[in-house]
């Protein structure tokens, strides 16, 4: 197991380098640059800017310098769009925000999703089952750019319970709507996965045996059914994580939470080269890390798996 983790980390580093290189060259292929603006800059001013940020050097050199700074100093360079800030600044201010609402959205999705799915499976083919299934399915296909305005309409404008956005250092009122808007579609998927997985488990021979032996049903669920039920849920967490990263763009731009989700896409649209690079590396790294955690979790739940 330990060797396996080491090997995975060993692979991660070249993976990240390849990732950075691909996105670097792709990004430079895109038309326009960080300093293209409605009012074209005079060539002299443009030249000064390019010299300042080292954009006048050959591409491979720029890439080399960038990666070198990342590896040696953990320095992701200056932002071209926010001229007073570095990419490190952006990560420092935005990442904790995204992490906070992302974490809660995850908890929200898993806890409620699993409970909902389990109830649906246990009460298979009853009204509760159908209600849970249809809620889950609608939640899964409702895009979050539709869900977010609906939430605001209800909780902010009609009921007046919650603020319509902002972060304010992460007070709870500000976290609720982003968490629901981000977590719902994952909650729905998890509920569906849990339901079908649990149905399968409940129909399996060993559960039937347990039932036949007269074990209390509650005990069977907690002791025997839940763990194998979680297997497909756990393997869904990897893709869910990637989905949440994409979803955080909508959360940040709609609820003005100040997370890193906006930099991710705006960086590409602004041609903010160092921001694209920095966030690609950051997100790539996180994805790799998260997939590793999921795999370890998987091995822990499923004793059949050995690395």
């Amino acid at each position, binding site marked *: 197991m330990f060797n396996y983790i080491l090997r995975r980390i060993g692979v991660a580093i070249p993976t*990240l380098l390849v*990732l950075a290189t691909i996105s670097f060259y792709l990004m430079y292929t895109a038309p326009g640059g960080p300093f293209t603006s409605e009012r074209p800059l005079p060539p002299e001013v443009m030249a000064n800017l390019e010299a300042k940020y080292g954009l006048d050097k050959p591409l491979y050199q720029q890439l080399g310098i960038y990666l070198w700074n990342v590896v040696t100093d953990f320095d992701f360079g200056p932002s071209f769009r926010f001229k007073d800030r570095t990419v490190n600044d952006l990560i420092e201010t935005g990442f904790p925000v995204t992490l906070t609402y992302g974490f809660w959205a995850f908890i929200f999705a898993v806890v409620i999703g699993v409970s909902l799915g389990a109830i649906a499976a246990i009460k298979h083919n009853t009204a509760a089952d159908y209600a849970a299934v249809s809620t889950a399915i609608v939640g899964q296909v409702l895009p979050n750019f539709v869900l977010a*305005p609906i939430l605001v*309409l209800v909780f902010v404008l009609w009921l007046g319970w919650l603020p319509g956005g902002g972060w304010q250092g992460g007070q709870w009122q500000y976290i609720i709507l982003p968490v629901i808007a981000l977590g719902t579609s994952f909650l729905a998927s998890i509920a569906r996965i849990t339901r079908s997985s649990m149905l399968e488990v409940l129909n399996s021979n060993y559960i039937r045996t347990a039932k036949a032996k007269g074990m209390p049903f509650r005990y069977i669920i907690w002791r025997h059914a839940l763990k194998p039920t979680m297997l497909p849920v756990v393997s*869904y967490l990897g893709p869910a994580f990637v989905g949440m990263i994409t979803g955080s763009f909508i959360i940040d731009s709609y609820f003005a939470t100040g997370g890193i989700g906006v930099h*991710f896409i705006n960086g590409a649209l602004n041609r903010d080269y160092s921001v694209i690079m920095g*966030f690609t590396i950051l997100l790539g790294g996180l994805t790799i890390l998260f*997939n590793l955690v999921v795999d370890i979790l998987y091995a822990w739940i499923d004793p059949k798996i050995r690395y």
Partner: protein
Amino acid sequence: MLTHTNKKVSELAENMASETVSGRSLWQDAFHRFTRNKMAMAGLVVLGLIFLFALTGPFIAAWSYDDIDWAVMGNAAELGQPSFETGHYFGTDDLGRDLFARTVQGSQISLMVGIIGAFIAMVIGTLYGAIAGYYGGRLDNAMMRLVDILMSFPYMLFLIILLVIFGRSIFLIFVGIGIVSWLDMARIVRGQTLSIKHKEFVEAAIASGVRPMIIVLRHIVPNLLGIVVVYATLLVPQMILTESFISFLGLGVQEPQTSWGALISEGAGTMRYGTLWQLAFPLFFFIATLLSFFFVGDGLRDALDPKDR
């Protein structure tokens, strides 16, 4: 969703691979099971209706999707409501364009994106996975390592950069979405290929000197078709969802063409301004389609997987 599907799909493939000998009855069995699944059948009917809507809609619409009703323009909230008198069955958008015609047009585009995107992912993923699995060894290692690398690539960024570099076109959206979605497919197919490639019929083909590439295409791929189709069905709604996000970012199809995503994101923005129909109609078709695809996909999977009975 995907990984979960992967697991089930791979189980299913194992079952199917082991039963290839009695293939015919398996398919009949599956068909029978599928028709008994009410949700899946309902999904199939709804899908049929929606396809019909997308195909015949242009003949029913009183307006063309890019015509402006100048009388309504600028006052859609009052004059652009759904009405049979004006011929705007679904109302109009803010510019006075007929929403019925636009929903029809959007349905065509979104369904095309979903289906062609899934098809591209299916073709690339199947070939890639089958080749890696069949040849094995170093090639397999290298190919799957590449998939691992691509898996950690933030694909939305990738797609946005692609759309930015090459300009936007429906074609690129198909390809772009398809290209980033073949990875899971490749993994599943590779796994199945590994289990098929030692079966007698493959060994027989090798013994009679058939070239490896032909074996992959003639013998391996056809035997993976069932699982590939199931997976592709479940991929379609993902594609449509992805397209809607792209449209939300404003990188979708060019005006005056539209898509469900584009219509929905426009309608969602103006939800509070008294033009709710601009959201409701496209959203209805969007949700109905995705749900149906999920039901049909789940139904197919259950039907082809005897264990789940």
